[in-house]
């Protein structure tokens, strides 16, 4: 069992899930509450990774951040290296890849909040920000848990993007799914099997924990 790959994958999944929560909350807020006519475009854009093969996403990350693109050159001048083959590159790829899994549950949670509660908060003197943190967030607890679970699990088993941009560097970009791939390629099926089982077990445990917690979370309108 490749513990290094497991630790790396856990770290990648946690950072991705955390980042996606931070990115997803304002995006979802905007999608849920904006009255702009073109907000459907943002909705579509955030859902694109659902239909885009991870290899395509990885390919574009390679191209966009390679030294032949202006963006890549800018990034290289700034950081001294390309985004590919770095842990940061995996985080960026995973964030893009799992974005829909963060935004959609949050949007669902936000729109199912009784708008009168938001009005009530505002009338009671709370700013939009305070309303967000004191009313919208606590009442979206189950949506937030779902977001964390989905993005974590989705990243944990993520393969295509990592294969495309990772470069399979042990301890940096060799995730557990890549390790399984390598083991199969090398014909070491027994080890591949063990690693795969660990991957499945971790994902199952994380999802089960979240759904168990979710079951106990706030009902949105307890008396309805």
């Amino acid at each position: 069992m490749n513990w290094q790959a497991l630790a790396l994958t856990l770290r990648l999944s946690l950072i991705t899930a955390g980042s996606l929560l931070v990115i997803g909350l304002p995006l979802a807020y905007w999608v849920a509450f904006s009255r702009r006519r073109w907000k459907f475009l943002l909705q579509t854009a955030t859902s694109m990774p659902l239909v885009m093969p991870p290899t395509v996403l990885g390919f574009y990350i390679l191209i966009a951040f390679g030294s032949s693109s202006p963006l890549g050159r800018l990034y290289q001048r700034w950081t001294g290296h390309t985004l590919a083959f770095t842990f940061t590159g995996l985080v960026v790829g995973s964030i893009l890849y799992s974005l829909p899994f963060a935004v959609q549950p949050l949007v669902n949670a936000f729109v199912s909040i009784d708008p009168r509660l938001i009005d009530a908060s505002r009338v009671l003197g709370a700013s939009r920000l305070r309303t967000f943190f004191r009313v919208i967030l606590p009442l979206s607890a189950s949506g937030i848990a779902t977001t964390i679970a989905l993005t974590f699990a989705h990243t944990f088993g993520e393969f295509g993007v990592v294969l495309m941009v990772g470069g399979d560097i042990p301890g940096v970009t060799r995730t557990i799914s890549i390790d399984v791939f390598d083991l199969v390629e090398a014909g070491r099926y027994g080890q591949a099997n063990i690693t795969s089982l660990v991957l499945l077990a971790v994902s199952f445990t994380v999802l089960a924990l979240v759904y168990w917690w979710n079951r106990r979370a706030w009902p949105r309108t307890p008396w309805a």
Partner: protein
Amino acid sequence: MEPARLAAHPVGLTGRETASGGTPKPMPQPDNTEERAALDFFARKRYVNRTGEAFSLDIRFAVPSGITILFGASGAGKTTLLGCIAGLAKPEEGRIAVDSRVLFDSVAGIDVDVSRRSVGYVFQDLALFPHLSVERNVRYGLRGLDEAERERRIGEVLESFRIAPLRKRLPGDLSGGERQRVALARSLVTRPAVLLLDEPLSALDPPTKARILDDLRAWNRARRIPILYVTHSREEVFALGDRVLVLERGRVIAQGLPQDVLGAPRQETVAQLAGFENLFDARITAVHDDLGTMTCRLAPGSPAAIDIEVPLARIERSSAVRIGISAGDILLATEEPRGLSARNVLRGTLTTLEERDFKVLVRVDCGVSFAVLLTPGACRSLELAPGCKVWLVLKTHSCHLLRPTDDAASF
């Protein structure tokens, strides 16, 4: 019973002295503040009601502190009006001021943010935060105060609304009445400059409702802020109102004291809202200035037409009018009554009996059909049944002359 007013002059909204019996007031007195408009409202706004019909709100009024009832059918624009005051809805044009503080002025470009309007708003569904305890719900609007003052105010309001023992409970664990009290307390603890109540008590039984209203009145006795109270319950209007504004399709169609506006409705829509079961087409056939009455023919032109006496009003002979009579204002007798002050005694045949919770609605054909409201006890002791010969007694002042709603044509 208060004598019905059919005066043609409009009843002002600041006509509190009329209600308190017309005794002349000494000039400097505590009630004086009521004479000044505490809430000055003018707004035009297009809105879509709950059934999806588009209306335009076009309302102008000024009310002093105390309770003003907003009365009207659903979709009349009541909630939109409250929204304009709270800042949850933005008028296309208008000016809204509370105690001379301008909250909105389309000309001056003023639009104070919702959170800074100092408005108390109790929503129809109360909108208590389900994840916060009673205490934290009440505390929610208290910011920028030191903790001691916050505690003092919370304690005070929880006492006033008798919910102190519920402090730690969640809204989901409260009864309907308790939740209403929490919602009121949460709004009032912030010391709002104006209080908006959107049918907050509609779901309660009458005794609970009355107790909460008493507490609300007691609270406001010291503070004297304007309170707009939306309802479409006629009982609440009479129980509460210092004033009433009747809204229909985004317009104010009547305003004044409850007993003037709803007790003696001068518009048919108001009469319908106020629950006048008997509405008739009629024509004035004679005016008796000396008797203070007019003779009025119901269902003119039909062979079954009958004449009744109605109070004198400044209406010309042979004008077409509508007459409204509340079913509860009609007396029913099984023998011909004699020696009454009532001018109208009509003979008829009982056609139907219809029992509705604690009331019996009886229909009597006297040429035209009248609805009469009786108690089940009266019904039994008179042994009423369809086909009975009966007499109806109508007090002159129970017969209200109505005029069509002015604005109806503009839609």
